[in-house]
């Protein structure tokens, strides 16, 4: 199974058991290495069986919670560091099992069952690993038995991270004195789900990332994953990170032309809405000639044809296009003659007649106006794993689908976008206004949207509210799709814009405009509930599903 297929289930399982997500990165397929966890980032192979992914993820989660100390290598030899890592693996797994005993059934199948007769170090390590995890497993080898005894004797110290290094020191010494051969360069950690324990050891002083072993020879084969030197895959894209530095001055950029609107902003420290604090500029959206972007969006829409077909069936099933005549109603506008006659007949026969003798027209009227507000900030440029598209492009596709579906439903819908460059330059773009029909020109406009800048949500919401204020509809909704927390380059307090967003949401609510936030940020729980309310936000971790989720979310919200 490819990681992209397993990712969502693993993320959910991780959140369910450990409460917090992990950051991960998939390795290039050509490099056959075991998982590696360091600095909060887990590197995974691109393909693996689903159970192996699960075992890895939960083993690493146990490390994250219980491996709270980095060891100094000091004078430890490779044998000792290997055993220290193994003991640490056993220690954190034991602690995890105290909370979740069933995890043993997840990990144990990956441990070799039958002890080999070979007496080299990797074989003994594998036997020891199994013996430490499985109390019911018998192993008569004296070294394994001794290690097991020492481990269990220290049971009361299992919560102490230093235990592993101490035991690694002692046991490694023993094994060294028994002259057990150990080629640490060719060694691969067993079993397959365990990571290489990079995170356990303090980084050496040299700038290159070295393995915990003293010998730093780069191997020709890709088999050994204890190697840190010569890592092939790139780290985070440095230039992009620089562009998102918080606290910098507004970028040198002449604000574009367009009508200008002023809004207040809530300052949480002085507890006052500062009047005339933010400037929102409506930037005209050009209709470019069809280019690569429009062709891509058109192609994507074709690719989503079955989603659209499914949604259309759903919408048709709501049968909203014309009023239906409902017969045999207990209450209604007119008598249903057939039912009346039957009732009269029943009455004469001395039977209690059925009292549903009326009929009425079911005019299920939907009177909803929705403003779909897209976050166009720089982070939406990021790719969505497994789709070959950026977050923004996925958002464009989802919006296009929604617009088409809503037209079919007869609901009023507009599509706007925003990004901000400081409080004096909040850029707002109207791709589709209420009443506009979906057309190739609209598609080109939408496809041409460019990501950039930051996310000053409160100002954008207030301006969206201004647009909705003039719509006459029973239900008016701002549906905000965003991939991160509210933030701007001239704000240093992370709570400031969250509080301002909440204030904006409340003032819209006071006017009868509901706000709902669909967040693509897996960490959104920290702020989304504060800003929007528990009932008015949803977090979508797997962004690739945005097109189908957006539309079904809308239908669910509007009954």
């Amino acid at each position: 199974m490819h990681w992209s297929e397993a990712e969502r289930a693993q993320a959910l399982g991780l959140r369910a058991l450990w409460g917090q997500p992990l950051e991960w990165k998939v390795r290039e397929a050509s490099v056959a290495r075991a998982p590696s966890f360091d600095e909060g980032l887990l590197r995974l192979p691109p393909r693996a069986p689903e159970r192996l992914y699960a075992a890895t993820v939960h083993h690493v989660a146990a490390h994250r919670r219980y491996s709270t100390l980095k060891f100094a290598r000091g004078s430890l030899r490779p044998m000792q560091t290997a055993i220290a890592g193994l003991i640490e693996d056993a220690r954190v797994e034991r602690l995890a099992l105290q909370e979740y005993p069933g995890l043993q059934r997840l990990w144990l199948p990956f441990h070799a069952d039958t002890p080999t007769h070979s007496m080299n170090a990797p074989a003994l390590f594998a036997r020891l690993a199994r013996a430490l995890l499985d109390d019911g497993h018998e192993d008569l080898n004296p070294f394994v038995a001794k290690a097991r005894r020492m481990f269990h004797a220290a049971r009361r110290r299992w919560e102490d991270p230093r235990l592993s290094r101490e035991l690694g020191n002692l046991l490694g010494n023993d094994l060294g004195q028994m002259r057990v051969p150990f080629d640490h360069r060719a060694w691969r950690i067993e079993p397959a789900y365990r990571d290489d324990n990079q995170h356990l050891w303090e980084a050496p002083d040299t700038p290159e990332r070295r393995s915990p072993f003293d010998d730093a020879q780069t191997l020709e084969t890709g088999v050994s994953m204890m190697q840190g030197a010569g890592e092939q895959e790139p780290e985070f894209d440095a230039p992009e990170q620089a562009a998102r530095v918080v606290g910098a001055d507004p970028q040198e950029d002449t604000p574009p032309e367009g009508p200008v609107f002023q809004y207040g902003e809530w300052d949480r420290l002085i507890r006052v809405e500062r009047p005339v604090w933010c400037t929102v500029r409506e930037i005209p959206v050009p209709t470019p000639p069809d280019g690569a972007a429009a062709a891509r969006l058109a192609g994507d829409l074709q690719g989503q044809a079955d989603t659209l077909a499914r949604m259309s069936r759903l919408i048709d099933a709501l049968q909203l296009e014309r009023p239906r005549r409902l017969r045999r109603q207990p209450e209604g506008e007119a008598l249903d003659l057939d039912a009346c006659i039957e009732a009269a007949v029943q009455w004469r026969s001395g039977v209690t007649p059925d009292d549903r003798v009326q009929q009425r027209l079911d005019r299920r009227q939907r009177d909803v106006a929705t403003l779909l507000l897209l976050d166009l900030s720089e982070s939406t440029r990021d790719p969505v794993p497994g789709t070959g598209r950026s977050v923004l492009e996925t958002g464009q596709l989802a919006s296009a689908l929604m617009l088409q579906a809503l037209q079919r439903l007869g609901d009023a819908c507009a599509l706007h976008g925003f990004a901000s460059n400081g409080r004096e330059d909040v850029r707002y773009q109207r791709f589709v206004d209420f009443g506009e029909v979906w057309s190739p020109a609209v598609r080109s406009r939408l496809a041409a949207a460019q990501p950039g800048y930051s996310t000053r949500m409160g100002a954008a919401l207030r301006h969206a509210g201004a647009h909705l204020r003039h719509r006459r509809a029973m239900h008016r909704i701002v549906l905000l799709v965003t991939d991160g927390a509210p933030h701007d380059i001239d704000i240093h307090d992370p709570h400031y814009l969250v509080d301002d967003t909440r204030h904006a949401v409340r003032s819209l609510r006071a006017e009868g405009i509901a706000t709902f936030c669909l967040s693509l940020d897996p960490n959104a729980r920290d702020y989304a509930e504060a800003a929007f309310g528990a009932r008015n936000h949803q977090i979508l971790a797997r962004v690739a599903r945005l097109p189908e989720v957006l539309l079904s979310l809308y239908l669910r919200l509007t009954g």
Partner: protein
Amino acid sequence: MSDPLAGWRVAQAPWYRATGNEVALYEAAWEARLPLMLKGPTGCGKTRFVEYMAWRLGRPLITVACHEDMTASDLVGRFLLDAQGTRWHDGPLTLGVRHGAIVYLDEVVEARQDTTVVIHPLTDARRVLPLEKKGELVSAHADFHLVISYNPGYQNLMKDLKASTKQRFAALDFGWPQAEVEAEIVAREGGVEAAVARLLVRVAERSRELKGHGLDEGLSTRMLVHAGQLIRRGVAPVEACEVALVRPVTDDSDVRAALQLAVEAVF
């Protein structure tokens, strides 16, 4: 004259485990005949609590499960035809108002707003119920008490109580009990040992982390009781959880996988 509310009297003491001071608060609201709103997710004990209070106070309890097709007539009453002609038939709300029962409207937000406004004249100082089709104004019996339940986690922007309705009620918040208390409830109602009940509660706690991430709500206490009942009858715990907890609550295969993993990890 026979007791018109005989069918609604609570005969046997319902078992209820208090989690806070909700019993005292309910009794205070009852003494003032203050309309009461019980807020909380589904399956956390609201209905059981009302039954318990009805028994404790010795009052009959009329429960109405609200739904979208409910009309005002379903609550208030309507004319029926029989061999002798038309006859007015009191609805459950009128019955309670006339004879002095506790009327419990369960999941009131499911009903349309034009139906729920029927309760407005009962929830202010007037305490009257106009029966327009009949031309009668019923004054509430001194022992009439209105209680409604409301699930605040239900996300639907169209279905919400109007502000003018909400402010007529006092509210009690219900949520998941503390782990030990919840385990006690699951052990007793599900008929399983305390150790098993505690494990079931752990599964529910883990599932509640997924609220908003694929699950609208975590698993409810009621679902844990169902799982317990299956376990008591010999179903293996992991399978009982799959049937009673995981499968009903979601069709999403990723969410199911995560929940199933949590079940297997706990047991």
